[in-house]
């Protein structure tokens, strides 16, 4: 892949001319791109190729608004990505093709739904051959989904450590014994892990496995994986966050007033991209996404992210992307040379950052000095809509209930001074009935 004059392109090499032609000619590309399950592309001038000697085609794929990674997705997002991968693998068979790989990084979210982005992942299906991507599918999708559903939702974060998928022996060791009673998990994870161990040193040549797995067997395998994936389920957990909007200082009127205020600030700044930090279930992010502005809503709580995602699907929203993120430890640069997966920050900056009902969690719960918060936010975006939550607020009182108040500068004036280091304070509006103040700022 390469960039030219700000646009993203992909060179298709001579080596893959047959596969590419088969994809385009068989009808598979047409069907998948029409149903928006595979990213569409157009063929462009071959002259653009960076390595022309081996170039066959140069294609320009449709751009994804925001690149996200499996370790940032909630359970349902990862599950939908898994289902889509299997559905595509299954559909490809009908056109005489199979998927070369089943990496979770082949899926991105665009317009509220998962889409397969690796156009060159298709190869000619040779009946008789087993699925070469079976192990990868189990490690990238099935193992993390099973761990999240059967052990602990927080194990999603293991995907950040194991960017090539969770090793099956590790998943097998962590999963509760009861999963051995589930046919799908028993075979595709536990027995699979055993099989890997047993044949680790033994070489299995192509000749040995060729012509041993019929198309029906392949279909059976994909079906089994699909029903195993779909059988996993994470209830939306009742955490301290999911009842957030019921349990605070807002009356209905002040809540609505805040919403209108945020909307007017958004319209004033006219952003092309918005990030809502600590946006919970996206209540206020929607002030932007409902206007057709691509918005990413980050929150630390996987339950809130999942609720948000369920809403996106239910209402068929196109401009909202919910993601899980801990702002005190956000996604870093990962992989070879720390350059395979980009940090959260590197995927910005954006035009507008929103930080409503957030500052007290950072400054008080996490002891981050207000100036440092201002510094960080300024690196993320040009404009900032931020809400100051004073010590008199019931939420802050709760945070300070069991600890020493070591925050002498955590006052409205202290907040203004801290942020004036990095921002011009354009406007501020107190929200009546509670003692919070919403600011609109522009970084210097």
């Amino acid at each position, binding site marked *: *892949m390469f*960039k030219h004059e700000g646009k993203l392109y992909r060179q298709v090499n001579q*080596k893959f001319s047959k596969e590419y032609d088969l994809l385009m000619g068989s009808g598979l590309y047409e069907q*998948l791109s029409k*149903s*928006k399950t595979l990213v569409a592309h157009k063929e462009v001038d071959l002259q653009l190729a960076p390595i022309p000697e081996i170039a066959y085609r140069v294609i320009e794929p449709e751009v994804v608004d925001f*690149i996200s990674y499996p370790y940032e997705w909630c359970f*349902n997002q990862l*599950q*939908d990505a898994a*289902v*889509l991968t*299997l*559905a595509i693998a*299954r*559909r490809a068979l009908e056109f005489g093709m199979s998927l*070369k*790989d089943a*990496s979770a990084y082949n899926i991105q979210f665009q317009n509220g739904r*998962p889409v397969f982005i690796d156009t*060159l992942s298709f*190869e000619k299906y040779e009946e008789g051959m*087993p699925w070469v991507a*079976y*192990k*990868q599918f189990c490690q990238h999708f099935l193992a993390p989904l099973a761990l999240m559903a059967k052990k602990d939702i927080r194990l999603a974060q293991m995907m950040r450590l194991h960017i090539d998928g969770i090793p099956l022996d590790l998943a097998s060791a962590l999963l509760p014994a009861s999963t051995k009673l589930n046919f799908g998990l028993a075979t595709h994870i536990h027995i*699979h892990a055993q*099989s*890997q*161990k047993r*044949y680790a040193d*033994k070489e*299995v040549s192509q000749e040995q*496995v060729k012509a*041993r*797995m*019929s198309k*029906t*067997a392949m279909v*059976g*395998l994909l*079906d*089994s994986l*699909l029903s195993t994936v779909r059988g996993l389920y994470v*209830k*939306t957990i009742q955490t301290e966050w999911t009842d957030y909007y019921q349990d605070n200082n807002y009356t209905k009127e002040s809540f609505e007033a805040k919403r209108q205020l945020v909307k007017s600030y958004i319209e004033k700044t006219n952003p092309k991209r918005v990030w809502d930090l600590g946006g919970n279930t996206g209540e206020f992010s929607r002030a932007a996404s409902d206007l057709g502005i691509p918005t990413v809503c980050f929150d630390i709580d996987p339950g809130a992210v999942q609720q948000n*995602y*369920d*809403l996106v*699907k*239910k209402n*068929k929203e196109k401009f909202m992307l919910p993601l899980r993120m801990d702002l005190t430890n956000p996604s870093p640069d990962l*992989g*070879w040379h720390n*350059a*395979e*997966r*980009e940090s959260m920050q*590197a*995927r910005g900056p954006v035009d507008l950052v929103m930080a409503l009902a957030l500052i007290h969690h950072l400054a008080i719960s996490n002891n981050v000095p207000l100036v440092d918060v201002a510094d960080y936010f300024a690196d993320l975006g040009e404009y900032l809509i931020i809400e100051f939550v004073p010590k008199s607020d019931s939420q802050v009182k709760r945070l300070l209930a069991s600890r020493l108040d070591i925050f002498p500068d955590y006052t409205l004036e202290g907040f203004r001074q801290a942020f004036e280091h990095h921002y011009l304070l354009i406007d501020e509006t107190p929200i009546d009935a509670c003692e919070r103040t919403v600011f609109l700022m522009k970084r210097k």
Partner: protein
Amino acid sequence: MNFLSINEFVQGATQSYLDPGSGSMILQLILGAVLGLGVVVRLFWKNIKNFFTRGKAKFEEDLDPTAVMETVTENASEESLQQKQ
């Protein structure tokens, strides 16, 4: 900006860059036989049913990506409605 996996650099012609894993290949041969049998049996019964109900015979498995995603969407709305209660 480089957000692409090193795995993008594909090597051999028909051979995938991926290491499929010997254990994974062997498991598939065994599993595939069992699961493939399941597919055949299910299709057989579907055909019998269709024959008797005189409905339109549906030979294809419902793994049309769009149909699958629609079902997933429906399930999501059911689930979220249940949880609100």
